[in-house]
């Protein structure tokens, strides 16, 4: 069978339009670099998930720093970001930022225009998948990219279900390295 199931089965795709699975961090980095106005959205699980001894949100911060990608801090992540010395560009909750993103005329968190690539890290997979469905259906003007270790069918680009956290850590580390590199 050639169908990929998401890790959490409540998120099984019922439809026709599924994410492209990418496992190569350099490909992800390439997509991010190519984006004009990327955005990183951080969710509540980034506060409770640890990976390689660090909080997930710290990976988020590192990713954002590489290319000065603005952060939207959802749930109560803003407080931790401030503790980490990062001022998020906005602090909408997840549904609110989605509600903005689906308007192509929205000015974006930096008032420079709506985003063309939105990266998600640290969401409950069910809420995340529902939110990505909104963007899949209503935001054809942007691409979505998930950074968690789960396959998200409603995203434009998703990782596969990583069996081990080590794979995920390696991917994120590689992504950061690639984003830092000057090459496109």
């Amino acid at each position, binding site marked *: 069978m050639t169908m990929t199931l998401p890790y959490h089965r409540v998120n099984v795709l019922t*439809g*026709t339009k599924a994410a492209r699975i990418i496992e190569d961090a350099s490909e992800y980095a390439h997509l991010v670099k190519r984006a004009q106005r990327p955005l990183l959205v951080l969710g509540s699980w980034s506060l409770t998930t640890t990976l390689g001894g660090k909080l997930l949100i710290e990976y988020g911060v590192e990713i954002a720093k590489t290319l000065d990608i603005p952060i939207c*801090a959802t749930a*109560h992540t803003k407080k931790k970001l*401030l503790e980490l010395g990062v001022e998020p560009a906005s602090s909408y909750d997840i549904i609110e930022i989605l509600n903005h993103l689906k308007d192509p005329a929205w000015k974006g968190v930096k008032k420079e225009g709506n985003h063309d690539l939105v990266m998600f890290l640290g*969401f409950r997979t*069910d*809420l995340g998948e*529902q939110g990505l469905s909104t963007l899949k*259906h209503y935001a054809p003007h942007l691409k979505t990219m998930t950074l968690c270790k789960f396959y998200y069918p409603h995203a434009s680009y998703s990782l596969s279900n990583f069996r081990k956290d080590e794979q995920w850590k390696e991917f994120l580390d590689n992504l950061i390295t690639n984003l830092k590199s000057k090459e496109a």
Partner: protein
Amino acid sequence: MAVAAKKKNLRKDTVNEIIRAEDNWEPVGHTPMPEIPDLRNWDMRLMKTYKPFYAPMCDLCCFCTYGKCDLTGDKRGACGIDISTQQARVVLLACCMGMSAHGGHARHVLHYLIEKHGRDYKINLGDQIFVEAPHIRTVLGLKPETLGDLEKAMDYVESQLIHAISSLHTGQEGSALDYESKALHISMLDHVAMEVGDIAQIVGFGYPTSVADTPLVDMGWGSIDKTKPTILLVGHNPVTAVPIVDYINEHGLQDKVEVGGICCTALEVTRYTDRAKIVGPLSRQLYFIRTGFADVIVTDEQCIRTDIAIEAAKVGTALIATTDKACYGLEDYSKRETDEIVKDMLDGKQTLIFDPDKAAEAAVRVALELAPKRKKELVTPEQVPDLAKDHRLCNMCSQVCPNLLPVGDAIEAAKNGNLQPLTEVFNKCIGCGKCEQECPRHVPIFKMMQAVAGSETWKVRAGRGPIMDVEIRKVGAPIVLGTIPGIIAIVGCSNFPEEISEVADIAEEFAKRKYIVVLTGCSAMAAGMKKDKEGKTIYEKYPPNFDAGGVLNIGSCVANSHITGAAMKVANIFATLPLRGNYEVIADYILNRVGACGLAWGAYSQKAASIATGCNRLGIPVVLGPHSAKYRRLYMSRKEEDDWTVMDGREKKLVDTQEPSPEHLITVVESKERAMVTMAKLCIRKNDTAQGRQIKLTHYIGLHKQHLGTLPDDLHLYVRKASDIPIFFKKEVMAYLEKVGWKEKPVLTLPTLIGTYPSEVPIESVVH
């Protein structure tokens, strides 16, 4: 034209007759007994600000034999439907299911009680409640005086349902907004149906009314005395539960038989007798059934595991189903002799009995016979590693968990003797049992949970029903002016994203801050399932009055109508606005002036969808937990982009307030911390006085700083004049306002949407 001349206004005549229009307790407003089109302009006005937000669960439609149709991109189905309209259609369906669940319950209760007491039995809610039925008054225009009058309300509700269901048929509505308007209509009627149901129960069964300090009753499965014959009631409808209690009392068995309930029937039966026990919310249903401690399960309707007959049989518990909603394919014993029923049940037959008195007698007699033979022991922590011995870390259990819990890891730890992770899983478990079903090695996960569930018991205040008029009179002004910062209604099911104790945390936070906290259903239970250091639950710590800092269990699901009803009563009793057939004026009043906000943290059901949507039409915002994104639709504004112009009702001119209050009608938030911040904000209303606004902003700022670390970045939108700034945060706020270039906002004497959209309601109607 000839035809038109001949026509009478049949509808108006019929309505006037039903609502006794000639009785002049209040003038009849513009929309008595409204039909689908009648409040459509109000809905469209609401949705102009609070636009539907959709999160499809499926790319497709499979409703007819043209399908499946792919609705991605800008594709339309074979019938012409697009993805938004299909989502709205599914939302309407959910609201119809929810309303019908309450409506079917109300009809059943009403029928039973009219058989018992007669159609002319008077509605009397005690000496403190005179506005007995704000929904029936407002929506129908009828002041119900008897059980027979409640039937009229149900006739009307049923007459509307068929049109809504019809519109779901292929080739009907082509507009998402119009499907939403129908959903708002049906959900408004849900509150009417709930009100009918609960008023009937209160007067017909003699539940407490016109009293705040109802008894504290026992909760937790540990409160069941396992040495006694035990009857477990599951569902929402007390029609059989009450006769069970009566039978026990009439036969002097009060000390000999335990009656416990799961879900709302538990809340109902504890309103009838404080000797009954609340086993727990929906999420504990399968867990408790599988302990086998119940001798007899009596099911009624709604939120019952559909495999309950199978589960009961597995553990040797007898089962009686009692309603047409859930018959489980069982043989109908309604017309058999009770002796025969008891005999067959003791032989292992599960039965369907529609006669409540017969079912009651059978349940008690069977429980008395079965209990002595029951041999059930709980699993001990020591037994757990052995039960887990076949476990391999395949994680199928984790993958199928609807709450995304790390079940596999917890079993792995338990196998190695560490029960802490399993305890945590249990505390977040919503009770579906899929983990165990999926396990390829048949590890008895639910059984293992017995070792970590604990047998703690709690106290919960019995449901009290409607808010008293005198309470409204007292809090009306502070609520409308804003000096009581808000009414927080914590309602709905137990599909919580995290620990069950989060509900208690949220309730207490707002009670401490002197909001009025009201609760119903499984959430009312969950709020009691946490104790402070002295061993007290919030029901023991906070007063039961509808007043600042009160914590109130209003009752079961159908008692949600009293929460919305209380908001209506503020408009009526405090502001002296007539309710009668006056829905738009009352909803407009609540939207602009009553700082209430609902929270359904663990909503799972279609009833939750209709209850919330009914709140929304009435102008009450609702916050939902993360699972609720699966309802597919929210109503949200974009605070900076949207137009916040309202009419000044006294000045009769449009004013651009620039103030997004309330910001959303219904939204999902991801964490409890964010929920509290959002709820505090959603209590802000345009009518707040400076003093009231100061208080509301104090809490909004306080919660925001506490959980998000800074001042809110939309704070400037809620400060109209310098006098709105909370003294406690004055300096900090002033600095912030200066930084963002804040300017004073226009003054407003009486905010209203009337006059900003096509309506027959004259603007004078809103001036009281």
